[in-house]
């Protein structure tokens, strides 16, 4: 190890590029990240549409595999819709940080003088906007073909909208942990699916309660509580996981 000595004259000189104080601008950064990811996703429409097509396809498979009997389908419809939506949301998770990791912009995200927690939250928000929300809006249409009893359609959409937000947050932890791995896709589902179970229980439970005519507010409140908890805790885990993955 050696480092040659250097005259110290240059050290005294005034910086033409002055040192800057960090002056906020968090909202600017978050908004730009939101816009950037939205633009990127909307330019690759296929990636936005894939989970939706997958959702519709899986729902089509069940009546074929089980029975076309509307009465039977009506009983299992809430669970089927929720499981299929959950899998569809999972499908698109792997790409959440993947392209940023590959092209080096993830390092830049980590080195921005803004909290990584907020920036990664912006990325997750885009994932939900373009996956969870469309799935929730599409679910009632698929409910019709599964003979979902009337009166539960709004609850289905609402529970999915609330639930998929938690799913995106929890799933992003898994995506961040596996982004540095060559074949992280299968591992991602192994990591994330067990953590999805509470959301699934209360999401499908809400729709079932609506069908039975019970109150749904308790279910939706718990889904909201799960979302609040994920919102508080998951971003920290995502940020920590991204830092680990970038060390690879």
């Amino acid at each position, binding site marked *: 190890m050696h480092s040659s000595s250097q005259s110290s004259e240059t050290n005294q000189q005034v910086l033409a590029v002055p040192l800057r104080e960090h002056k906020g601008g968090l909202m600017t950064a978050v908004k730009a990240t939101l816009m950037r990811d939205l633009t990127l996703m909307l330019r690759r429409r296929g990636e936005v549409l894939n989970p939706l097509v997958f959702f519709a396809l899986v729902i089509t498979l069940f009546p074929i595999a089980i029975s076309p009997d509307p009465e039977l389908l009506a009983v299992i419809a809430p669970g089927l819709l929720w499981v299929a939506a959950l899998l569809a949301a999972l499908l698109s998770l792997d790409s959440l940080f993947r392209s940023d990791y590959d092209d080096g912009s993830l390092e830049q995200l980590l080195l921005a003088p803004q909290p990584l927690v907020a920036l990664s939250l912006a990325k997750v928000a885009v994932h939900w906007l373009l996956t969870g929300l469309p799935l929730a809006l599409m679910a009632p249409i698929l409910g019709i073909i599964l003979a979902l009893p009337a009166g539960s359609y709004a609850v289905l959409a609402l529970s999915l909208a609330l639930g998929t937000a938690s799913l995106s947050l929890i799933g992003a932890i898994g995506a961040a942990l596996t982004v540095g791995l060559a074949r992280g896709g299968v*591992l991602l589902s*192994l990591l994330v699916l067990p953590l999805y179970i*509470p959301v699934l229980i209360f999401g499908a439970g809400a729709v079932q309660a609506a069908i039975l005519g019970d109150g749904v507010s308790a279910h939706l409140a718990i889904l909201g509580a799960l979302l609040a908890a994920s919102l508080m805790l998951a971003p920290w885990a995502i940020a920590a996981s991204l830092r680990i993955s970038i060390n690879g």
Partner: protein
Amino acid sequence: MWAFIHKLGSPKWFYGISAKLQPWFWAAAALLIVTGSLWGLAFAPADYQQGNSFRIIYVHVPAAFLAQSIFIAMAVSGLVFMVWKIKVADMAAAVMAPLGAAMTFVALFSGAVWGVPTWGTWWMWDARLTSMLILLFLYLGVIALRGAFTSRDSASRAASVLAMVGVINIPIIKYSVDWWYTLHQPASFTLTSRPAMPTEMWLPLVIMVLGFYSFFIALTLMRTRSEILRREANKRWVQDLVNGQVEEAR
């Protein structure tokens, strides 16, 4: 306090102290498990409802306890590793995971076998069994994630984060599964929830639980020692230690 933590952090120190502690825990484990087994199998009275199949409780419950405790221990070790960068904590977490998965499997298997005389079926979506099954998947996830990284440092950190995320989720999963189970109520009673047990029934259970915990500690100490040797093979103190043993053998 700080000095103590850093002392604990030194693999060399841990290797020495664990050698002294280990025999005691093995002895305690053997004594407690043998006593508990004999008592539970031969001396505890049969259950008035379930008859002798009730004796499965003496392996099912300790295994289930351990399965949950090991996950918590793993997450705590992960936290210690992440916060204080104590490598021994990560080594312990690494060797705990397979034992935890094994205990979860034991709890699941004994529960399923117990289900045959009790419910007349091998599997019931009982709240406790369902939570155990999910716990098994959580364990498999941590083990798989650790194995997936080529860099061990990254593997350790990733596994620590996942263990911590898992441990936050375990109570949520447990409560939601309990809630889900009571909503659907497919069975009239659960395996292990029962009115107050007579002393001669629960005392052997306590002994078994303590025995299993001693076993867990003893095995973790032993395997952490191996893990230390594996990871520190190039360190001076390990080489001196081995050299000493080689010379002794001459």
